[in-house]
């Protein structure tokens, strides 16, 4: 599956070349390179403090790399801030769920990008509700209604909403930062189903996860980081947990 995608003569959706990031004198990431193709799920694994979140923040425009280049569809880009990355079709699903709890699902779906109508540019709630409903139906996120308030939803439903939002706006790439860290078994399975749906829609996905079981269930390739150093990239089908664990820990 991975092979067919990569055989296409198209530029990778995301291309990181020799990314280096230091905060003051502390090196967070050094010499990191990775290609990410449409319809491919790459897992980013490593211990706490390995630099995974820093990488995600560079790709999403929160931090700028100290050196190295980021290319989207073969074009070098530099993001002044997160909104520029978003404009390029990159969406992030944060582990702490960036949802406004007291607002309905549809307002969260359009948070910061509300649909307006008419010369007075008033909110078009009906249109937002309609689109939200269509999207949650398509992704099979089971929520009572688009009008349901986030606070009344379960953790899995909330994460479903967060992913549905990313899906709605992402044109190319979704970054998932531990999307199931706070979820139970059934809810995790549900979120994983949604992630597979995204792959079928030909979106490139970079997922950070601490669960190796999940990484092996979902990913096409696995990229291992240790203390900011890229240890290696493996095709999921051609490696096993033992190898990945020893790459993460540096033991064995």
């Amino acid at each position, binding site marked *: 599956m991975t092979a067919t995608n990569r055989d296409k003569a198209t530029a990778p959706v995301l291309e990181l070349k020799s990314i280096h990031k230091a905060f003051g004198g502390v090196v967070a990431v050094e010499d990191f390179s990775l290609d990410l193709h449409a319809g491919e799920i790459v897992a980013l694994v490593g211990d706490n403090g390995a630099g995974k979140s820093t990488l995600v923040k560079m790709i999403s425009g929160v931090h700028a790399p100290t050196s190295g280049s980021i290319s989207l569809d073969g074009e070098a880009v530099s993001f002044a801030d997160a909104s520029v990355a978003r404009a390029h079709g990159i969406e992030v699903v944060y582990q702490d769920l960036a949802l*406004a709890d007291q*607002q309905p699902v549809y*307002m969260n779906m359009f948070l910061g990008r509300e649909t307006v109508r008419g010369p007075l540019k008033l909110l078009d709630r009906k249109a937002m509700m309609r689109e939200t409903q269509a999207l949650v139906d398509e992704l099979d996120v089971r929520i009572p209604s688009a009008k349901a308030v986030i606070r009344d939803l379960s953790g899995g439903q909330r994460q479903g909403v967060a992913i549905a939002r990313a899906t709605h706006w992402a044109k190319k790439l979704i970054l998932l930062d531990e999307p199931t860290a706070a979820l139970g078994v059934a809810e995790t399975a549900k979120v994983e189903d949604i992630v597979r749906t995204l792959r079928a829609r030909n979106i490139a996905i970079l997922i950070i996860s601490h669960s190796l079981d999940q990484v092996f269930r979902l990913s096409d390739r696995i990229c291992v980081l240790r203390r900011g150093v890229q240890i290696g990239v493996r095709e999921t089908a051609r490696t096993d947990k033992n190898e990945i664990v020893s790459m993460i820990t540096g033991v064995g």
Partner: protein
Amino acid sequence: MDWLRSARHTFDLQQYVVYLGFLAIFLFFAVTLSDDGFLTTRNLSNIVLQTAPATIMAIGFVFVLSAGEIDLSFGSIVAVSALSGAVVMQDYPMVAGIAAGLGIGLAIGWFNGFLVAYLRLPSFLVTLATLGLFAGVARSMTDLRSIPVTNDAFTGFFGSGALFGIPSLILWTIGAVIVGHVIYRETRFGAHVIATGDNAAAAQVSGIKVPRIRLAVMMISGGCAGLAGLLYAGRLQAARYTLGESDLMTVIAAVIVGGTALNGGKGSIIGALVGSLLMGMLNNGLILMGLSVSDQMIVRGLIILIAVAISLRDPGR
């Protein structure tokens, strides 16, 4: 069962408590004070006229609270704005007085907002300080003297005048509520204010310029307080440093009773209007009942306590 679930979730006591409370207190006074003239058109319209400035302040306060901030200084802004307008109108025409009153309100709001939004000082402390600061400014501006407002156009426009038989203070109230409600409920700005108060981090990563929202709500509060100051000056035909001083409790109570959450993310302009009318009605009724000033304060304090208790009893948690 879906409908049952959503019905349970959409029924929110906090949303209706103000209307039920308004109705209950209205009926109570209507029965007990029927011989004291509570129900006369004159008395009822007086209630609306007297609450006009508080209602305007309440509208600004809804924006501030919804964004997760607080403004304790609006009472002082009312006095400084009213005095500025009155002083300017001693020598210049009405327009200059209006500009001075509103401009001062917006400027103080900007000052509060700058400290809150860009220096990230807690709004509670910032506005507690500016409450005292501008109360002092109001006193020193005119050496505690009150300034008469003799500009007839102004007193008509902001006070005693009427259009098609509707008193101008009522028109100001209606106008401000409509504009406030539409901005709050129907615009992207309103949605961003609410989102900022609900989850500032989520708002930020969603591309909402959170500091700008914080600055804006403090300026809205200052501007509303400035307008309230002009309404006071118009109605009383004078400005004095005491204007707005006693409104802090009333306005906070009106807004909280009206269903605006103290910690942001949820609010209602219409609720604030009804809350403000409720407070005005309460004042009026307690006076008609012949309660002493101290008893009035006790009853009002108790009502506010109940309101806050209901507001903070969050059914979702």
